[in-house]
């Protein structure tokens, strides 16, 4: 018993001495600011900044090769803190969240085929152009949900929905969506057009009950073209998020029912 205790203690002592020496002679000198900046970042390692994880971004920030404010997840507060550490000015950022610009649920938007294959939007889209009648709409096979580092996206009734509280605006979903219908919008914006189909009204109506027909009514009701709350791409209204409409009255007046007030879904947890 005593021998065993002595042995273990001895081994521990020797190992401790070796480690102590190694720490003294083999330690890597590192800019202490890297650690401080890493600590200031949210630590989500989402990659939204374009660097491999928060540590990668911190190194680039300290090295001066990355602009401050690229971290969408951290937002202004984070940028300000980093600015304090590095002694540089913070670029003002606004928290952005992902918005899925489609509201064509299974019951509203028609399907033109029975897709059978891998559950992934990109391959589904490559199979006969997807099984949704509207070739611009959300396929609902969850490619965005799969890449989301925060599990902020879930599929409901064949449609991707973003939980605004969980979304950190990293933009991974924007890049993966084959229909390019996810956009990062200011978290403060409340009025959205949930459609991505620029076709003429009749052809939109053929495939979806809630598609934008480009009737310009939202524009008219929000003070006309001069007010500049909306822009149009083909027959598709887009909210001008630099100058968003404030009057929630226009939502109810949208004949296509693709305009909503706060599009974000809140998951139960």
């Amino acid at each position, binding site marked *: 018993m005593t021998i065993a205790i002595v042995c273990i203690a001895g081994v521990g002592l020797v190992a401790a001495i070796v480690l102590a020496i190694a720490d003294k002679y083999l330690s890597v000198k590192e800019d202490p600011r890297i650690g401080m900046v890493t600590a200031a970042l949210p630590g989500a390692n989402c990659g939204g900044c374009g660097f491999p994880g928060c540590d990668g971004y911190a190194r680039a920030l300290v090295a001066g090769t990355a602009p401050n404010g690229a971290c969408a997840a951290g937002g202004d507060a984070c940028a300000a803190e980093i600015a304090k550490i590095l002694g540089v000015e913070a670029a003002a950022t606004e928290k952005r969240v992902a918005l899925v610009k489609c509201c064509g649920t299974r019951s509203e938007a028609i399907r033109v085929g029975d897709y*059978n294959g891998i559950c992934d939007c990109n391959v589904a889209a490559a199979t*006969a*152009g997807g099984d949704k009648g509207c070739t611009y709409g959300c396929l609902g096979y969850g490619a965005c949900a799969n890449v989301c580092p925060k599990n902020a996206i879930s599929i409901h009734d064949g449609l991707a929905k973003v939980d605004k509280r969980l979304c950190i605006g990293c933009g991974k979903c924007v890049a993966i969506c084959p229909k390019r219908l996810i956009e990062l919008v200011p978290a403060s914006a409340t009025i959205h057009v949930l459609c991505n189909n620029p076709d003429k009204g009749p052809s939109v109506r053929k495939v979806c009950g809630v598609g934008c027909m480009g009737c310009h009514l939202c524009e008219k009701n929000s003070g006309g073209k001069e007010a500049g709350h909306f822009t149009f791409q083909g027959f598709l209204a887009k909210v001008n998020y630099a100058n968003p409409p404030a009057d929630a009255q226009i939502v109810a007046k949208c004949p296509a029912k693709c305009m909503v007030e706060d599009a974000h879904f809140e998951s139960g947890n």
Partner: protein
Amino acid sequence: MKTVKSQFKFKGGVHPDYNKELAREQPIERLLVPAELVISMSQHLGAPAKCLVKPGDFVRRGQVVGEKNGFISVCVRASADGKVKAVEKRLGPAGGKADAIILDTTEKPEGEAPAVADGPVLPPLDWKTASREELLKRVEEAGICGMGGAGFPTNVKLNPPPGKRCEYLILNGAECEPYLTADYRLMLERAPRIRLGVEIMRKILGGPAVRIAIEANKPEAIKAMEAAFADIDGNVEIVVLPVLYPQGSEKHQIFATVGRVVPEPPALPIDVGCVVENVGTVAAIADAVELGEPLLDRVTTVSGGAVATPKNILAPCGTKYSDLIAFCGGEKEPVAKLISGGTMMGFAVSTAEIATTKTTSGLLLLPRSKVSQYSSQPCINCGRCVRACPMNLNAAEIAKAVESNDIKAAEDAHVMTCIECGACSFSCPAYRPITQFCRRAKNSIRARIAAEKAKAAAAANK
């Protein structure tokens, strides 16, 4: 000229039900120009052609309506007289959208009536006196691309880059896809045309040896080709291939006929001195040169258990599938799957409103009983896909890697070598969409490479 048996057998391959008897005995029938044609600007591999007409324009049969747009591209010609109803994005068979001309053929161009409605579009050429450049130019003008399926511009293929010489011209008459009999009928009915095409191509390519590859299950076609090529001079052989899918794959055909192995991508057949052309393409070249007739029509097999009368139809490119189906007497039973091409590599489509292109070799109407569904069962590691893979890939590993989003592992397992022949999915007892997994990996790798290139180019511009 002699007929020989193939000396080389590639590893792997599968034996699907051929079902060729459905349309094999049906002579090629011509379809009259339908009331509406949908002429896509993207009928070939490479950059889509640039549309030259606008709604309201009248066009003549053979008129160039889409301009060649880049090196890997071919022009598009109107397959019939008519009035342009609209120019809009239309879904193609492969699932992509491309500009297409909607042609109303009931409204004929005004003004002077054409002397011969179906007369020569281009001046006929005497291939014996014409120069190589003239012949190449004619192939390009005629808008010819590979008619076997991929649609690679033929003039590019027939013009090897400097330093590379074509030693073997291989004629692909394997037609290993189930159901399809378009090439078979062509070999039976138009063998002399094919021979003329071969002679023209030989001249363009500087006199290579010719190998005509035909699967052993087409004895009639072999006989017809033997008769047509009997008195041809030079090194010409008909190579009888064993019946095995994918015998019609370019790489496997090169191996089966001349025993050469094309290295991994980006190597091309010309790197081992071979050019492979589909028999349909060869006949189109003969027409373009001798008759001055561009590639405006092609033979399409309409078959499958659900069509009333299976047929081999010579139809203008741009004919809607619904018109082809109507020509075959409609549906005999409900169609569960509509396939553009063959069952192994064809594309399932969602509507019969899609139109044929220069590469549409078949249109299959499968009843429910002939359709197998993929499932999400796990891999049981049985190794059937590994044994079936003609490229000798570990398809099971690739599929598992892609399933867990590990594209890098798939790349390390040589997924880019995959020819998407479908032998793995065909043989998988768990009904896993293995080929689709490979496709997914290839798409993401291609996208990543393109993004890297764009990034490098942007950096270089700075």
